[in-house]
């Protein structure tokens, strides 16, 4: 009976200890492979094929230089940055416009268009793959970054519209009402009143789209496969990994991997709060 009165009972230490062990093991399972990749980028071939658990003998940056120039990682990263910049921008502008109108205006066909967008989440992209190739060819944008950007935007719209419509719906009506009475146009109300109010939602979904489009592998494989200089980073990495075997240049493979992983990790650590809250909330809606 005595224990009942005390809310903070002495914790069973064995259980608590085991919990910590489990958490630490999982954390190590994640950190060690990444750390190993990073360290391997400074090793030479002999060290990589020596003891996997050994530190590099010296800090060799030559593999980073080789990966950047000879293996074109610099080029791939630049391509990816350009594509993702424009596609995320396009996704956010067109997606938030559509979501806003669908969430806050009544007009015939509103529900229909909303479900038209949301239905896109139910279809596996593999179903569209073949025809998509020819659609992009027909509009004359096959093997171009512009084509890839438009396709990224189109395939990001279902989730973006779904998420942002829910967000715009939750915003109070009174502020928009006041703006309208003051004579602000619909367009002005959207850009100057509603967008600033929706900022938390917009930030979350922007990060979500940046990560998703940065990591896209299938669509570039179909749409910009022809010219190596058009490749994005995921294509480049996959190809370097096959070439590394042939050229026996493993350090530059790991340098290329590190170059890909580090920027994403930095962005993630900076924005982790928004990413996690945004994803959690978005997935539960």
């Amino acid at each position: 009976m005595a224990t009942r009165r005390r809310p903070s009972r002495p914790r069973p230490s064995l259980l608590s200890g085991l919990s910590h062990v489990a958490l630490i093991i999982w954390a190590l399972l994640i950190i060690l492979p990444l750390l190993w990749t990073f360290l391997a980028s400074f090793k030479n071939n002999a060290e990589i094929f020596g003891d996997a658990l050994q530190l590099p003998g010296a800090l060799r940056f030559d593999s980073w230089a080789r990966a950047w120039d000879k293996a074109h990682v610099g080029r791939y990263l630049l391509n990816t940055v350009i594509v993702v910049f424009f596609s995320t921008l396009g996704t956010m502008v067109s997606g938030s416009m559509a979501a806003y109108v669908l969430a806050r205006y009544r007009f015939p066909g509103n529900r229909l268009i909303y479900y038209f967008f949301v239905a896109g989440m139910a279809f596996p992209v593999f179903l569209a793959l073949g025809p998509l190739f020819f659609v992009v060819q027909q509009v004359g944008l096959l093997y171009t970054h512009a084509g890839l950007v438009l396709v990224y935007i189109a395939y990001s719209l279902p989730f973006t519209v779904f998420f942002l419509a829910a967000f715009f719906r939750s915003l109070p009506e009174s502020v928009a009402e006041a703006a309208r009475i003051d004579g602000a146009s619909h367009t002005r109300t959207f850009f100057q009143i509603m967008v600033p109010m929706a900022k938390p939602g917009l930030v979350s979904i922007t990060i979500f789209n940046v990560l998703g489009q940065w990591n896209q592998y299938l669509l570039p494989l179909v749409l910009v496969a022809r010219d190596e200089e058009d490749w994005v980073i995921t294509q480049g990495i996959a190809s370097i990994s096959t070439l590394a075997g042939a050229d026996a240049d493993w350090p530059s493979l790991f340098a290329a991997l590190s170059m890909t992983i580090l920027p994403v990790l930095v962005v993630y650590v900076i924005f982790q709060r928004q990413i996690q809250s945004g994803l959690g909330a978005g997935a539960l809606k």
Partner: protein
Amino acid sequence: MERLRKYGFIAGFLAVPVILYSVFVISPYIQAFQISLTDWDGYAANLNYVGLENFAKLFDDDAFWQALRNHGILLLVLPLATIVIALFFSFLINLGGGSNGAGMRGIWGSKFYRVVFFFPQVLAVAVVGVLFKAIYRPDEYGVVNGALIKLGLDPVGWLVEPGLALWAVIAVMIWQAVGFYVVLFSAGMAAIPKDYFEAAALDGAGRFRLFFSITLPLLRDTVQVGWVYLGIAAFDGFALIQVLAGDKGEPDGTTHVLPVQIWKTAFNYSEYGYASAMGVALFFLTVTFAVLTLRTTRRERIEY
């Protein structure tokens, strides 16, 4: 005038997204259903309809059945393992510290774990594939095998052993997925009122009871959402398998999955009709799974 302005505004805001989406998303999907009934090779100017021939061919295709078997294994293992691990960790991270009077708190270091566990989720699947290719190398240079040899054990052919390859792939999928579901379940747990836990703790409930009698029942909807997501992921696996195991389903067809076959059939063999039929099959499999899951697990919502 005001009405006109309103509809003009609506049309102006919807035009670009609707056109982009119709051209690049909806039209390919509709065409895929149409092309699945033809023997189109990507060049012929006219579509030659062959009825359900592609689907008949699919039923005789060993690779298709092999792929279905593999999706079946993925569908059983991936959601279950990921959800169990993620539930365990999110419980420890959010509530594992017991109650401290002001409410439940997470285990010591929970902020750190929450950040680290999510790492793999932000890495491209293709990059993860390349990374694990090095880790799984069958010879002594692989990270895992290097360590095994050091311990005096024999190296294991993780990706070359037919009985192991798919499991090695599934392990990577779980490795990458757990973080997301920890975040998802944490959001769900945060929504459960604190006094439920306090009341139960006051009544002498231990952590096992808190988990099984309070957390899990109240988290049911969230777990269901997670189950659907993971089930849909079990019908994918493209990037990981294509990079990690190659596109031939090696070893011995044990890593055959439909997405890789669709991609290969379309872009390597130019059999767009057949590839589209596989796509249609994949679509119906995914939808059937999602509908079945949502129907069989449906139940009254608990409002709190």
